[in-house]
């Protein structure tokens, strides 16, 4: 057998635990009676609210308009009336205004057959504007506005476009299910992307732990004679990260502080490509997303298509509640996700999963002294020295930490995963990065 490629440096193998949900088809989650729609669900400036309390909104209506270039629109996931504007905390620490919409009235899309729209004669510029209007962001978790990502600087050439179906986070299977169930839509979305970026080569990256998805994508490409290179990858975390997946596919390294476009590549998650299809061909804004509800404490794990704004508690309830008391509830994957502190926290565009984890799964342990074993250095996919960075941040030497590469840290969590002393390395990096950015802003 041919050796599958992967990124060379570092990486870890957390227990995958994808079997809990990977064979379950995507189902529509029930519609929340009260949707809480945050206005800042993306990187960049938050959308500006264009509704007020008491307004009647329709499904998919714009309720937050983009402000500036790096911003996207926010739409009402349900028809109903605006109940209140609330200030909420998202699990990732963002504080934002949220529009609470009480369900009422008739759906415009749900349960109705949808026509595809002719888009072929739209220009690239028009398509990108449409993305911003429709609220398309990267669905892998970073939620970077897609129209910004797809606007490469003048003169740069897009050699590779990569569809990222790696899904390296344990537990999560939403992308896996999309590749199995929405394959036609994904490749239709790819046609839109080809029109905008005109890449020389299209690569489709899938980790080898999803053989059925690899097979499905390959046979689809064969049948339709598509010029797409399907690349199965050796399983290793954090391969789903842009930089790691590019290194694995092309052998090229994104320079420190650079973007994939610096090596002529653009990467998009399968979820994003699917959202692009829906936005362009169905004129449907980003108001729902596929996510996995899983974890040892969930009674019936499931893959759901949930409306943005659905409270976490409702999704957990829909999955039969807890079979045992969870030790913690996480939004996103277990390696990079955020702890949910309030069960009313809504699903946002970046929520790839909701996990209720048991004590046996998280295997937490008390922090002990660093024995300089060097494990964190061996696993860092970026070749950083987490131990040193943590120490510098701990000693308040932010300048020194930045010099040693702090800002390159992706917070992938490999170092925190292996540390035998259970030092909160990632938290240290996060803190250091935030303080450095704050200091820089001040200066």
């Amino acid at each position: 057998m041919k050796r599958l490629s992967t990124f060379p440096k570092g990486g870890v193998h957390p227990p995958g635990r994808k079997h809990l949900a990977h064979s379950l088809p995507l189902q529509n989650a029930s519609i929340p009676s009260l949707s809480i729609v945050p206005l800042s669900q993306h990187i960049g400036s938050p959308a500006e609210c264009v509704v007020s309390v008491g307004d009647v909104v329709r499904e998919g209506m714009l309720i937050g308009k983009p402000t500036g270039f790096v911003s996207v629109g926010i739409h009402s996931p349900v028809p109903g009336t605006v109940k209140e504007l609330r200030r909420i905390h998202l699990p990732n620490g963002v504080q934002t205004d949220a529009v609470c919409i009480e369900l009422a009235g008739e759906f415009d899309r749900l349960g109705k057959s949808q026509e595809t729209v002719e888009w072929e004669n739209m220009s690239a510029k028009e398509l990108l504007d449409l993305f911003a209007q429709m609220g398309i962001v990267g669905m892998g978790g970073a939620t970077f506005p897609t129209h910004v990502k797809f606007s490469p600087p003048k003169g740069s050439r897009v050699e590779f476009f990569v569809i990222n179906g790696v899904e390296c986070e344990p537990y999560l299977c939403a992308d896996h299910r999309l590749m199995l169930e929405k394959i036609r839509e994904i490749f239709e979305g790819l046609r839109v992307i080809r029109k905008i970026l005109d890449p020389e080569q299209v690569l489709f990256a899938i980790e080898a732990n999803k053989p059925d998805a690899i097979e499905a994508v390959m046979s689809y490409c064969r049948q339709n004679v598509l010029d797409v290179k399907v690349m199965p990858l050796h399983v290793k975390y954090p391969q789903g990260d842009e930089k790691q997946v590019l290194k694995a596919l092309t052998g090229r390294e994104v320079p420190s502080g650079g973007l994939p476009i610096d090596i002529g590549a653009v990467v998009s998650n399968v979820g994003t490509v699917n959202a692009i299809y829906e936005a362009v061909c169905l004129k449907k804004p980003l108001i729902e997303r596929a996510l996995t509800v899983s974890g040892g404490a969930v009674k019936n794990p499931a893959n759901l298509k949930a409306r943005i704004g659905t409270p976490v508690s409702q999704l957990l309830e829909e999955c039969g509640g807890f079979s045992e008391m969870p030790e913690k509830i996480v939004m996103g994957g277990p390696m990079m996700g955020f702890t949910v502190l309030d069960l009313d926290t809504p699903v946002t565009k970046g929520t790839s999963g909701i996990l209720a984890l048991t004590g046996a799964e998280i295997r937490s342990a008390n922090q002990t002294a660093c024995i300089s074993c060097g494990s964190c250095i061996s696993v860092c996919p970026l070749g950083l020295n987490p131990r040193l960075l943590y120490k510098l941040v701990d000693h308040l030497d932010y300048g020194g930490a930045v010099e040693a590469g702090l800002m390159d840290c992706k917070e992938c969590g490999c170092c925190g995963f292996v540390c035998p002393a259970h030092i909160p390395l990632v938290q240290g990096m996060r803190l250091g990065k935030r303080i450095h950015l704050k200091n820089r802003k001040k200066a």
Partner: protein
Amino acid sequence: MKKLQELLHATARLKLFKPFAAVFETLEGIIFGPTEITAGAPHVVDNIEIKRYMTVAIIALLPSTISGIVFFGWRVLLMIIASYVAGGIVEVAFALIRKREIEEGFLVTGLIFPLILPPTAPIWVVVVGSAVGVFFGKEVFGGTGRNIFNPALVGRLFVTIAFPQIMSASWQKPFSDAITTATPLASYKSAGELTGLMDLLMGSVAGSIGEVFRIGIIAGGIFLMLTKVANWRIPVSYLASVALFSWIGNLIAPDLVAPPLFQLLAGGLLFGAMFMATDPVTSPFNHESKFIFGGLCGLVTVVIRSFSGYTEGVMFSIIFMNALTPLIDHFVLKVKYRTAK
């Protein structure tokens, strides 16, 4: 289980046991597992922790320990117990004063220390050495993870210098009560005599308790490296550099420097390279500096063995390089990040 934990809590709260809070905390940690949960990512962690690290190290030391008991009799077991008790008292005393948990690193130190003593060493020497090693080697620096020198070696160094007669004059031959003055390295130094390689491997020659059964050491060392508890870079570079420098030295001055294969197998080199130089706390953390560390350890070992009054140089070389560890790391980092920019 829950009830037991509550009982433990209740006992710990009694006034009488107030000063021993650290002991109770440790007990709770060992029996019931962790008490804290972080809110931050990553939410799952690997199944490794310091206790497990130390357990693996102890398993790797078992062949040497058992062979020591078989070769030199039950007295060895007594020495190990004495070492644990003496070092343990110091450790617990510090934990109580500092009001911190008892640290696990001592489990390995307490076992290694008697293994690097001559089999004839009196029990009181074991007690003094172990206590001094833990006290001056570790606790004065702030405990596990903060020490500069390998605590077991500090203990050994102290008794070597304080009681030279006991530590180097009389060596027991395995499986007998016969006392000889000559370890293989010593007989090479005095008479240019080479011991057979097979004798060295099987351990039928005089030496410290843990260092003679070399097949067991090699097996334990490979186990340590496979489990990644010890980093392979240090033993490999250490042994390679001993081989290289003794080969060069033997070509130039054959009457001073012993040939490479004999050097590799004689004395405490294998034990030191596998179990002591690889101590993560006192060795460098950068991959590149590990090679430098091991290489220099080898050079110092060969130099001391060949040109000094001492027959064995492993202990000195590791202690010496322990002191240089932060410096090596510092300069390697400087070079590394300059090229990265």
